């Protein structure tokens, strides 16, 4: 489930950034990618392989939808069963 979530978020980010187009076909998209910060964090928590590089964030515009939601991370903080 965690990896599915990560994959969905990663794919969403790619779609938003227009990365499936050819760089040779059109000018590079300048608008920053908009990503839900909570989803981004959960995606990182789900993919902690030691061989990965960090995710660049300078071209990412984070949307903070959970600033007033104390339960936003309940699923990742749930007690071990």
């Amino acid at each position, binding site marked *: 489930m965690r990896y599915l979530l990560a994959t969905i978020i990663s794919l969403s980010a790619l779609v938003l950034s227009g990365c499936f187009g050819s760089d040779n076909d059109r000018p590079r998209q300048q608008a920053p990618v908009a990503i839900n910060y909570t989803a981004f964090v959960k995606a*990182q*928590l789900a993919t*902690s392989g*030691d*061989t990965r*590089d960090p995710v660049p964030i300078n071209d990412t515009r984070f949307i903070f939808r959970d600033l007033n939601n*104390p339960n936003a991370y309940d699923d*990742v*903080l749930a*007690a071990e069963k």
Partner: protein
Amino acid sequence: MLSRLTLLPAACAAATLLASAGTMASSHREAPFITGMPKVDGTDFYMFNSYESGREGYVTLIANYLPLQDAYGGPNYFSLDDDAIYEIHIDNDGNAEENITFRFQFNTERRDLAVDVGGTSVPVPLINIGAVTGQNNDAQNVLESFTVEMVTGDRRTGNVQNLTKAGSGDSSFAKPLDNIGTKSIDDYEAYADNFIYDVTIPDCPMPGRVFAGQRQEGFVVNLGEVFDLVALNPLGARDSRRNIIADKNITSLALEVPADCLTGENTVIGGWTTASVRQATVINPAPQGSETTGSSNAKGPAVKGGAFTQVSRLGSPLVNEVVIGLPDKDRFNSSEPKDDGQFATYVTNPSLPALVEILFGVPAPETPRNDLVTVFLTGVPGVTQLPTVTASEMLRLNTGIPATAAGGQNDLGVAGGDFAGFPNGRRPIDDVVDIALTAAEGFLCGADVNGEAAGGEIGSCGTQEMQVNGGAIVNDGALPNAADYLTRFPYLNTPLPGADNVAAAE
């Protein structure tokens, strides 16, 4: 390989100071972001040919972390970060990328020792509840251990193999308890010796040694006055002031490796240390506790995940401290040597001499500072420069230059005619503050170390092709004392005790 005979005349002629371009507090709390993460704040990096008797042919690497420890800092003292990786990188072909990485990872075990209170077992608040020795740690409530992996190739995607205890194959090493005080650990030096391990290093025919634990701070600096607008007499006696951090401890990751297992086709290697943490963190509002609070199954105080992301970097001393400008310090800590071209302006046009000119009226050497580019980014031809080199900041060591015995070392390193010292690597005794201050003020301009290049291989300062400012030894007034260091691995001194109860009782 250069012989000592080749080098010594140059030392007498030029007394060349081959230094990084800055000064002051090596790398303690040097960048805004890292001040909030002391457990992964690299403070000093040492790399030298081992000078312990009988250890010829070995190189010692020491990466220090967790700055300015007051020995009495209980009850938790100074554990390292289990969720971080601490790395020492070696470039042995001059391309500014690591060929070998030694990766330290720590693990903290909590025993949850409890005492009976009125028939109820209650967890104690301390990390030890009795005396601890190297042979008996039953009273120790918190234990740290670590592994060391050797990565060949890229630090993230290269081939990973474990260092193991020689003869046993065990890859887990224990870290000693910090020096809480003499009642907890009555002979800390003897206690800590139990945690020096002979190790089998992958692809290396000879064993090495490893130690990770608390040491007395080995860096020497007149820290407070230096940062108070250089409120000292920089041309006064080298011992006119005091080493203000002499009462601090530090945590050292020390590794001794046969030189032949580090070098490539040349005897020169470059080294630097980094620390990395997971990219994402979620703070847990209800962290794990004990059965007492019914929370033993909860997660820890923070849940971390994502790729390891570098937050600290240190090669030559003092670079990020006073060479890199404030807006770029965090960026430097996250950078890799292969990308150092972005920081070149800080070397060619250093701000420190300009500040000294403002404060003291001492004319800054002309720019561009080609002298500092040589010693800072490429190494000195014939000494610490590989045949092909990508300009990059790291500590460079010629393993072919024999170590100087402990009793004969000169704390000005190459500047004092001791070619086994900084900036040919760096030893604990090397007074890098004085060396760097002197270099920044133009001691090196146009210097000729060994005739490797016409007109001097160090390089000019703008149009100035000779030493400027009279070749004065500029200093901070704090002088290293050889008695404050060990003459054997791990070389940095036994840490100061948090309490000296035995002495107090006498």
